[in-house]
């Protein structure tokens, strides 16, 4: 079970959190004029990298805040934790 460093509460066990999938998926600013392809990609197309993955997590059974995590999907290492709205950091082992 992962130990996730909530930026607001500190390290907590994975069971306190809910994973919200890939981070930095941007909802097109003008949905009306977005093409079917753009809208399809926004709705359904997600990365599934082997390696570093940027994902959203919610401290559901704690402060209930959403934040971003950079996690290595192979080793489950947590490489960075950063707040909503912040750009993904440069990470590597």
């Amino acid at each position, binding site marked *: 079970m992962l130990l996730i460093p909530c930026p607001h509460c500190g390290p907590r066990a994975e069971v306190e959190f809910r994973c919200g999938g890939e981070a930095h998926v941007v909802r097109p600013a003008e949905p009306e004029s977005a093409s079917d392809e753009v809208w399809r990609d*926004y709705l359904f197309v997600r990365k599934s990298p082997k390696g570093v993955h940027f994902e959203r997590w919610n401290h*559901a059974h704690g402060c209930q805040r959403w934040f971003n995590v950079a996690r290595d999907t192979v080793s489950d290492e947590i490489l960075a934790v950063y707040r909503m709205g912040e750009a993904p950091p440069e990470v590597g082992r």
Partner: protein
Amino acid sequence: MSQAFRLGSGGRIDRSASLRFRFDGQSFQGHPGDTLASALLANGVHLVGRSFKYHRPRGIMTAGSEEPNALVQLAPAKARTEPNVRATVVELKNGLVAESQNRWPSLGFDLGQLNDVLSPLFPAGFYYKTFMWPKAFWERVYEPRIRAIAGLGVAPAKPDPDRYLHRHAHCDVLVVGGGPAGIAAALEAGRSGKRVILVDEQAELGGGLLALPDAAVEGLDELAALPEVRVLTRTTCTGYYDHNYLVMLERVTDHLAEPDPDLPRQRLWRVRAGEVVLATGALERPLVFRGNDRPGVMLASAARAYVNRWAVRLGSRAVVFTNNDTAYAAAFDLHRAGIEVGCIVDVRPEPKGKLVAEARELGIRIRAGSVVTGTEGPLRVNQAVVAPLDQAGGIGGYLGTVEPCDLLLVSGGWNPNVGLFSQARGRLRFDDALAAFVTGDASLPREQRLRSVGGAAGDFSGFDAPPTPLLPIWAVPSDRRGKAFVDFQNDVTAKDLGLALTEGLRSIEHVKRFTTTGMGTDQGKTSNVNALAIVAETLAKPVAEVGTTTFRPPYVPVTFGALVGHSRGDLFDVERRTAMHDLAVARGAVFEDVGNWKRAWYFPKPGEDMHAAVVRETRQVREAGGILDASTLGKIDVQGRDARTFLNRVYTNAWSKLAPGMCRYGLMLRDDGMVYDDGVTACLDDRHFHMTTTTGGAPRVLAWLEDLLQTEWPELEVYLTSVTEQWATMAVNGPLAREILAPLVEDCDLAAEAFPHMAWRAARIAGVQGRIFRISFTGELAFEVNVPADQGAAVLAAILEVAEPRGVTLYGTETMHVLRAEKGFIIVGQETDGTTTPIDLGMDWIVAKKKGDFIGKRGLERPDLVAGDRKQLVGLLTKDQKTVLVEGAQVVATPTGRVPWPMLGHVTSAYASPNAGRPIALALVAGGHARHGQTLWVPMPGKRPIPVEITAPVFFDPENKRLHG
């Protein structure tokens, strides 16, 4: 029976006390400090079980948790019975009852032994190939028969009477293994003030030291005095998970004859450790030769433990078969205990050093460069055949010489116990000197802060006789046919591995699954390396290239009870009850589970079944009135400057003009355009709204709205609070609704002009300040009364006092479903399934065309969502006016056809409707909106397809006259 095979002195047993136990119906004695295995051996019992597949007689091979053979059934036929328990780890207690497994009629004479003779019929993977014809026989004949003959113990048939606890802990350093390396690591960490947990699976600390003559375990007093060090004995670390999270099983009372009833039987520990020290030692491995499974064949280290720790006279004449030095120490200990050591058969052509000299001094013959090619003996080994190896590693047709023995010690080398290291994702490396897998130096994930020490790290400097130099020999040649076992528990022979390779299997994971080597309760602790090496040898590849199979938790078998802990029976899950629950119970309600809620389902009168009760309730609501406990609906308090903007974005309809005092029904979509939830939201004031959701959707809707506010629209000032449990909600429906409430309500005019449909008013109801919403889910005149939850029961009681004498009844969720279906009102999750749009539901009216963007708006324009042949909500009327359809049944275009029959859709709701006077149903049917008036068919298994007419999904009061009373 006396312990005839107990040595006269020595051992870590308490000779002043005797313990009685039974094995296979026979009574024996042992001493405190014994295991079941040591006590059996002290009584001369070497034959303890029959093997899994061939029913071969088996004895005790090890002295620890890696035991593959000596599996017994404890407390047979009792609720506390436990199958497949390793006799080597069961601490003896007074009154213990054990039975051997997998034999009939008896252990000594087992008819299943015939399998051994017939074994050419059952090679590895035989069940994939034989017993294929006729096909139907597999399920009915072959499999039940095979299962009856093969197999292990008997699962308990009664509920587990014991209690199990879970415990969570944190520590700076977790040391796994209480041998000398583990004790040293714990002392070092403890001295620096760190919080330390030291666990060991045995009853006392010492690990391998306990098997030495006159063992002295140092450091225990200091360990006990360190305040931050916790020592857990009888505790096995079973799993090493991510981020230094480990699970351990503590056997709290298993060893006690009369345990304190306040203590749990076992305790499952979940530990998050700052650092982990793996001091799990090393496991000796056997050698693979013909007849290496006979009772009396034992690992050299195990024999040493039985002689030194438990003072067992294991036999009268031993032969030792080894490829390394460690077995020499065992031979000497046996010799000093008075057991004749016939010879040491050493694979190495020229064994050298101190130990060899010592053997000569003790007069123990060494047969160097030789192997045991096989053994004989019906129920216990009575001779070993020894032959010299030739230059090519064979025996050149030499028949060998017979060495009589009733004990054969074997040592094929030592495997560092790397299971937990591997579970932690550590990489393994094959060490040629040890001929074993050792911990590799490749980096671990950074959160797995661990180090291995002692034998677990391949460091054998603590051994009095280290296992090097070692000459590997993986499959010992033999002069004749016979089984040479690699995996004892699964009856896998060297030949079976060869067969797997002949079949073309190459990956070691595939070989494992084909042959079952390394499976079972021991997970191949004694067999894996031998199996890998034989595969490598056969393929002429280095062992490192073949690799290992994956080590998985648990390290040893774990009782289900320990994993379950308290989560059983009443404590299995949370049960939510509304404030009015007891009133419903008093009126005989039958409840149904909706999420975690208990909701009143229907209220049968004496003699009524469900159908009769629901028919009466549905009539009563429309003829007089009815009251539903609607407290379980989700309620979210929405406040803030931008509350209205927020509602406009999450609902499909417009909220800009909803005035304080008014309510509106809203539909929420996901951004893909599919219906997500629905409910009525009331405007309390311009910046304050009271939102309701479906019962089941309440938590996820709140979480989703919160997600949107935090991540999509952080600029909006809106605060969400769940108030589901703050309010008790009772929906008063029916023609008499106003008259029922009027005498109880103060500060509020219920008259139609003053209190129109879809309005809400603050009011005092039965003296309690609350809110009344004029909203209806039945199509009747209806008021939803909301009062603080703690007043709910009192207010409902007051309402019922007025209502019941006038024929107004409490009704349950089933009647609620029928009434809303009569009106064609959807239920999210019943008429919708995540692929249903509001247009499919015929609810175009609620999708705003003019307002700005909202969640789902763009999604609804996707090409597939505007296609005309989508499944659309319709009503179904069975032509015979009698048959109630089955929810989930398919709808097809023709009464006859060939499977697969093109399916047009399915029934989503179906009820007998007393108010419509016939059965009604809702369905999602392809192009359904254009099919009104058509006849379609609903096929049912074993019946003729039922003809149905497609109609609009409204069956009662289509003009909505009743809503206004």
